[in-house]
């Protein structure tokens, strides 16, 4: 091998940001985030788990960290000198943690400039994987953090309220993604119509939206269609109690594809397991406390599926 053949930089896999969202609270996003973070760390990868639920942070409890000394609020309020001071060690090798912001009333609604600053720092964290545990709802802050990820994961439980919210979340995310890629204000009215569309209104589906834009500018519509085609979030069905509920992931995928135009990937299901709440009550991670419980085993399978899908840079930025 000649000297010129030797790579200057080792061929490490690119850093990946995974975001776990889903719209509704109480679906188990935080447990899923903690479990994925720990399992990835156990493979030897460097992982940083970030509690991005700024209004209701509790990822630390699921990771076995009782009292985080620093939080994102300290960074945003300039109480610490550098972002690196936020990195907290966890009981798990290779896994560091950044705590959300529990005690500040306004921190859940950070202004645009602070959000951009936060995103910039998140992107620069030296790690193989960055796992973002997002808050509930479809605020722009939540959606924008969801959309910066290389692998976006939505968690749903088989209950009407959760299923309803997951569609809403996916719809908002794709509209935000498409809207973000347009600079011209002439399309914003159309997006507003699409966002508020119900029933038989003129822009009922994304197809209608794209068709309307196509009439105004076909090249813009073609670009948006590419953005739509490359948006492929992963779906995890959590707290499954009945055999029938396993297929709800396939059903959600079908409806999302046909009516929203978004190709979801059903990554797996996690059965309801009492061990989850037992682990939380002990302030211990479920994955390490009960590695052989049904929820942990299915979490392992789900992660394998997520990793086997290839490097989930399925979302073209």
């Amino acid at each position, binding site marked *: 091998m000649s000297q010129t053949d030797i790579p200057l930089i080792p061929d490490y896999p690119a850093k990946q940001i995974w975001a776990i969202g889903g719209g509704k609270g109480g679906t188990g996003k935080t447990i899923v985030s903690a479990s994925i973070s720990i399992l990835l760390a156990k493979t030897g990868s460097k992982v940083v788990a970030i509690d991005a639920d700024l209004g209701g942070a509790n990822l630390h409890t699921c990771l076995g960290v009782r009292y985080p000394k620093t939080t994102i609020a300290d960074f945003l309020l300039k109480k610490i000198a550098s972002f690196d001071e936020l990195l907290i060690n966890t009981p798990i090798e290779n896994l560091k943690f950044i705590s959300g912001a529990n005690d500040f009333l306004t921190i859940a609604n950070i202004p645009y400039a602070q959000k951009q600053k936060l995103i910039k720092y998140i992107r620069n964290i030296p790690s193989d994987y960055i796992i973002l545990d997002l808050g509930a709802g479809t605020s722009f802050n939540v959606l924008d953090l969801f959309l910066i990820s290389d692998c976006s994961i939505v968690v749903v439980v*088989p*209950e*009407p309220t959760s*299923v*309803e919210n997951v*569609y809403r979340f996916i719809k908002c995310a794709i509209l935000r993604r498409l809207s973000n890629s347009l600079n011209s204000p002439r399309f914003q009215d159309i997006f507003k119509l699409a966002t508020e569309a119900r*029933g*038989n209104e003129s822009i009922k589906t*994304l*197809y209608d939206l*794209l068709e309307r834009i196509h009439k105004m500018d076909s090249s813009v519509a073609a670009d948006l*269609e590419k953005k*739509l085609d490359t948006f492929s979030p992963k779906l995890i069905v959590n707290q*499954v*109690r*009945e*055999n*029938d*509920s*396993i*297929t*709800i*992931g*396939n*059903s*959600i995928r*079908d*409806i999302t*594809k*046909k*009516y929203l*135009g978004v190709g979801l990937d*059903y*990554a*797996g*299901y996690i*059965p*309801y397991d009492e061990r989850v709440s037992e682990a939380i009550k002990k302030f211990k991670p479920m994955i390490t406390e009960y590695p052989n419980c*049904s929820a942990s085993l299915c979490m392992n*399978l*789900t992660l*394998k*599926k997520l990793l*086997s899908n290839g490097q989930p840079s399925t979302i073209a930025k």
Partner: protein
Amino acid sequence: MKRIEDLNYYELLNLAENASTGDIHKAYLLAVSTYSKDSLAAYNILLDEDRMDMLKRIETAYATLIDKNKRISYDEQVLKITSNAAVSHTNPSGADIHFKKDDDLTKKDGKTIRAFDFSAGSMPKSRDKSVREDKDEYEFKTADSAIFGGGHLKNIREMKGITLDEISQKTRIKISYLKALEDEDFKQLPAEVFARGFLKAYAKYLALDPEVVNRSYKFKKI
């Protein structure tokens, strides 16, 4: 992205164009449960008229794809996929048609030609081998291997307007057993080997593939 009206039968049922008969049955089961009246997945998302419209489309797609002759005709006329005439005329047994994989689709005169494989047994054998040799891959597919439980079957029965009483009279299976199958109330059922027999008879009466239903029905709770 396509309009619902523009989806072909394979796209409606989320099937590859080389789907086997078993795949079609399974896709149909899933599609009906997705758009049934009590579907959790469609709840408050689709207007009732949209849901009913989709069910009609699914029925039409299924009725066409499950019938070999109708399917071949549909493939030729709509998808412009023509069967390999030389091979298709050599099926005296009328055995089930096994479509080969995508790489057996070839282009001829601007049309896609599908080679049919009538060699009964060759396909299942190779599938068994692939399952044995690629256990990990098999495990990854856990989420995709749908389980059709009693709730799904009940949805399909109700959609077809069939009562438990009717099935009981024709199959001579006690209503309480049929209900227990739908409710997954396994304590009310006899030994599994007998209960599976009931399940197959029930599925057959609903014009579902008994083997597909039997394989995907689990006689235990999660």
